[in-house]
């Protein structure tokens, strides 16, 4: 399994990661090596095996839909990169 530079660029875009052009060949090599490693799995017949997502086969616990915390907005926004009037600020998205 071998990924080329355009594959890496596509994956990086999907993951919203900026990768410098100089680093792309090394990522292509590393990712190809990792895919070679994980492809050892393909030799195993797993046709009748149920996938395991939780090691204890537990199912998601539900709770009543009630408020458990007070208003923490000011505290949570103290670590925000940009805030205005209690709102998170981002670059303009609508012209």
């Amino acid at each position, binding site marked *: 399994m071998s990924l080329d530079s355009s594959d890496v660029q596509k994956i*990086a875009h999907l993951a*919203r*990661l900026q990768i410098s052009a100089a680093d792309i060949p090394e*990522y292509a090599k590393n990712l190809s090596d990792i895919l070679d490693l994980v492809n050892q*799995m393909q030799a195993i017949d797993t046709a009748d095996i149920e996938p*395991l997502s939780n*090691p204890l086969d537990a199912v998601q616990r539900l*709770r009543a839909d009630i408020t458990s915390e007070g208003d923490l907005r000011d505290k949570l926004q103290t670590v*925000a990169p940009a805030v205005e009037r209690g709102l998170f600020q981002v*670059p303009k998205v609508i012209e």
Partner: protein
Amino acid sequence: MFEKTLTELAKGLDAGDYSSVELTQAYLDRINNEDSRYNSFISVTAEQAIAQAKAADNRRSAGDAGPFTGLPLAHKDIFCTDGVRTSCGSKMLDNFIAPYNATVVEKFNAAGAVCLGKTNMDEFAMGSSNENSFYGPVRNPWNTDCVPGGSSGGSAAAVAARLTPAATGTDTGGSIRQPAALCGITGIKPTYGRVSRYGMIAYASSLDQGGPMARSAADAAMMLNVMAGFDPRDSTSLERPVPDYCAELNQPLKGLKIGLPKEFFCAELNSAIAASVQAAVKEFEALGATTQEISLPNTGLAVPAYYIIAPSEASSNLSRFDGVRYGHRCADPVDLEDMYKRSRGEGFGSEVKRRIMVGTYALSEGFYDAYYKKAQQIRRLIRQDFIDALQQVDVIMGPTTPHPAFKLGEKTSNPIDMYMEDIFTLSLNLAGLPGMSIPCGHTAGLPIGLQIIGNYFAEAKLLNVAHQFQQATDWHQQQPAGLYPATHNATEAS
């Protein structure tokens, strides 16, 4: 006092030999004087520590002290600490002052423990050498040219260097057990769901589990008594009663059935480690245990399955770091996409980027069945191996790592080499089973770890088995040379 275990320090506090403030100040001074050699702490929280110690001393005077009141420890910098930077070893969170406490932190605070600071780690817990930290590598106290292991490398090194009597860690693929082995300390990864993941920054949510890192099994049991328990804030927390992990430490091991997986004694295993593990097994036989060979036939598939499941979950979990609500934001973004891409490109280190990309690829359209689903099917096969084996034996033993601590830089150029260091630890996370590492020997001046694996919820049994070994041997009491340079007051070591 730096040679005393938590158990001994608790007795000293009870007897009034020293106050928690005196104990805490002594450790803070030691960190201040010595940690430049190891880089095991990212943040030292001196002011908060002294305040907590004063409160603990007051609690003791009021007759309200519990077993952990006044005892110092350090938290891996993956656990959110209200009002204190929680970086997760990443530039992404270098400016992140956590606005709340992780449940583990909350529980130690409620028990009256004193947090000395936050320990160094591989970025977002991705690594086996602690070389992936934004804050620089940690050095192994046994040989400062060597790595301490990872990702909880700062916690392991700090305990080994006697900069803290104990520390918390987390283990997604071996991140408690592997550094514990490489630094000659005791660490336990509990059953998945035993310790709350709330406020523990997520790497791979179906694998992540917090646990104790300490000088002895008895100390780890004391810590687990504080850490374990159901938490409604963690959706995969176990709703099961928590036993007293200290209660069964002294049970004799007569009749204990130990399984030795033949796949763990493979060609890749360093011969000195194989010999030390065999010698430890002999010691258990002398304590009344019996041994038998077992097989975990799918062991070789653990690394491939892990390196799909963990990166897939990571790519999803780490999508929250987008420069909007917290964490690093790039300068002057031209639009939203530019902000996401540059904030993440600048904020994440190369191993984190690699794993996010592997996960993104594995989960992308057309590849899901071949990778993610396949890995989850293999995961079931690996778990079944353990379930079958643990019907024949009480515990499984083997090496924690294939090699002792390696040199800084030795494995950084090839990610696959680094991944193979976790071949004996990853499978437990896939199966969700508890496992621990305890010191059982040395080679070329570096510690060797014995891994002990138990059935689901069998933490008390593992701690009992480890404690009995530590009553009969002194590997866990050995310490690196040069911990107390002559320029400092040597009597402090007593």
